[in-house]
């Protein structure tokens, strides 16, 4: 920006040569004051401290109350199980993770594509939308036996994939449909004014406007696909699969409660990793401009 020309006596001096607004209107400053850094540190360590405290309490309670390890093993036993059964647990995790990620990516691709297709034509939307909802409200557990029959018991992994996809698909579909319709009316006028083609309107208006909605749907679906993959294995695995749900079922039948907990820990860690990954994608795509990513300083 050019500095104000103090010597310019003409009336234009106050116009274009001067900075457009007072300095106070510069873009929001990025660095946070040091006082906030300290709160950030505390914020980071507090959950860990809470978790460790809970584990200590659990350990002590099991010892003091003499709870049977077949009911509730102490955390130390869970850690031992994690260590000893590590390779087996990782192997089971690989199976569950493969089902989960495939189902999630399939749901993402099919949800966005169908959502976009539905919003291109009102008739198609009217025709298909009720059935999409019907698919959503039908409990996955109830259609599991049918899916197993269709794909065959020898391909139980495919049944799991289909069931996890059914669960993860709908949030992305409904959010995409909502997002595609949420483009600002004023901006639509701008595009009409400059005679944007349908394709240009889609690329430069509808899709960017829908992005925050699609990402919100994606984050819900990421969690649901983990749940879907595990529940599907419970109801449709029938011993033919080797995921974490199978480890939990098997350990339960053998009363190896510590190993059940170990499998749970691995499952939770995987779910958290999925959540963090989608959170990272959200920050990358929306961080620069979307309200959800803006830190307000008051």
């Amino acid at each position, binding site marked *: *920006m050019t500095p104000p020309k103090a010597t310019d006596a003409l*009336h*234009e001096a*106050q*116009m*274009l040569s*001067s*900075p*457009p*607004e007072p300095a106070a*209107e510069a*873009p*929001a400053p990025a660095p946070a004051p040091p006082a906030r850094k300290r709160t950030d540190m505390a914020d980071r360590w507090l959950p860990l401290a809470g978790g460790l405290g809970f584990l200590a309490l659990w350990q002590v309670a099991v010892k003091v109350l003499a709870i049977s390890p077949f009911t509730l093993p102490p955390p130390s036993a869970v850690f031992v199980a994690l260590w000893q059964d590590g390779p087996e647990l990782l192997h089971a995790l690989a199976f569950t993770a493969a089902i989960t990620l495939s189902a999630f990516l399939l749901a993402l691709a099919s949800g966005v594509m169908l959502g976009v297709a539905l919003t291109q034509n009102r008739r198609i939307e009217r025709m298909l939308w009720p059935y999409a909802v019907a698919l959503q409200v039908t409990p996955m557990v109830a259609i599991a036996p049918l899916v197993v029959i269709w794909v065959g018991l020898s391909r139980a992994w495919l049944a799991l994939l289909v069931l996890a996809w059914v669960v993860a698909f709908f949030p992305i579909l409904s959010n995409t449909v909502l997002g595609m319709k949420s483009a*600002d009316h*004023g*901006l639509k*006028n*701008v*595009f*009409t*004014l*400059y*005679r*944007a083609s349908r394709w*240009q309107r889609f690329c*430069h*208006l509808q899709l*960017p*406007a829908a*992005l925050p909605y699609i990402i919100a749907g994606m984050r819900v679906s990421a969690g649901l696909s983990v749940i879907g993959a595990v529940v599907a294995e419970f109801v449709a695995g029938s011993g033919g699969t080797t995921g974490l749900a199978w480890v939990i079922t098997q350990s339960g039948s053998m009363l190896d409660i510590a190993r059940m907990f170990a499998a749970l820990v691995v499952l939770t860690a995987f779910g958290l990793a999925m959540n963090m990954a989608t959170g990272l994608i959200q920050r990358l795509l929306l961080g*620069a*401009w*979307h*309200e959800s990513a*803006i830190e307000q300083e008051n």
Partner: protein
Amino acid sequence: MQPHPQGSPPPPLVRLAHVGKVYDSGTIALADLTLDVAPGEFISLLGPSGCGKSTALRMIAGLGRHSSGLIDWPTSAYDAAGEPEREIGFVFQEPQLMPWATIAENVRLPLKLARVPRARAQARVAETLEMVGLSAFADAYPRQLSGGMKMRASIARALVTEPRLLLMDEPFAALDEITRTRLSNDLLEIWQRTGCTVLFVTHSVYESVFLSTRILVMAPRPGRVIGEVAIDHPGPRDTAWRQSPAYQAGCRRVSALLAEAMGQPAPA
């Protein structure tokens, strides 16, 4: 101060003849508007809400069809579909910027939609941002700018195609007094520099007299023009103009017409 050649006046950019607009609900938004917009003019449409001033602007822009009358562009080419090549820029009441795009990308939008090559478009965007004083904020996102600066970006987007006619629909209505004064000054500067024609919708008497060479005062129910005031001021429109007797006389005449439009007796 439009550059009138001696003898015959230039053909108007756009000519409205008995233009009316009736909504499906039966509301008469605009009745019998006749207006010739000559090149170089700065025309204000002034009136209370519901007088059809925004409706008129939107129909000129092609954002709505008129129900009766004729809108003609005598000096513009028409395409195969019978649509005129309007060569307009439109500034809405709200800045209407894409929140996901930087200021430079927002300003480039009309060129991008017209498939102007990127290199040429970027040079033009830089030039236009310079004109509205936003060069330093090319890479900022709209949310990082104040209301006044967003409006500057919106004006830059309207100017980037070098329109012959700039349509402005109460662009400064949502801004504070200080910012509005400043933007008014800059708008006049841009008007003189680019030689474009401006059609400006406002409900502020002072704003219209300060800016315009001609003011159409409109009345509601049904929306119509009830009077016209020419503001002939040869000198620069600056602070001295704002304090001059001619400016005050203009304000009085326009106010009297506006009072009539509102169905009140003119103040003494």
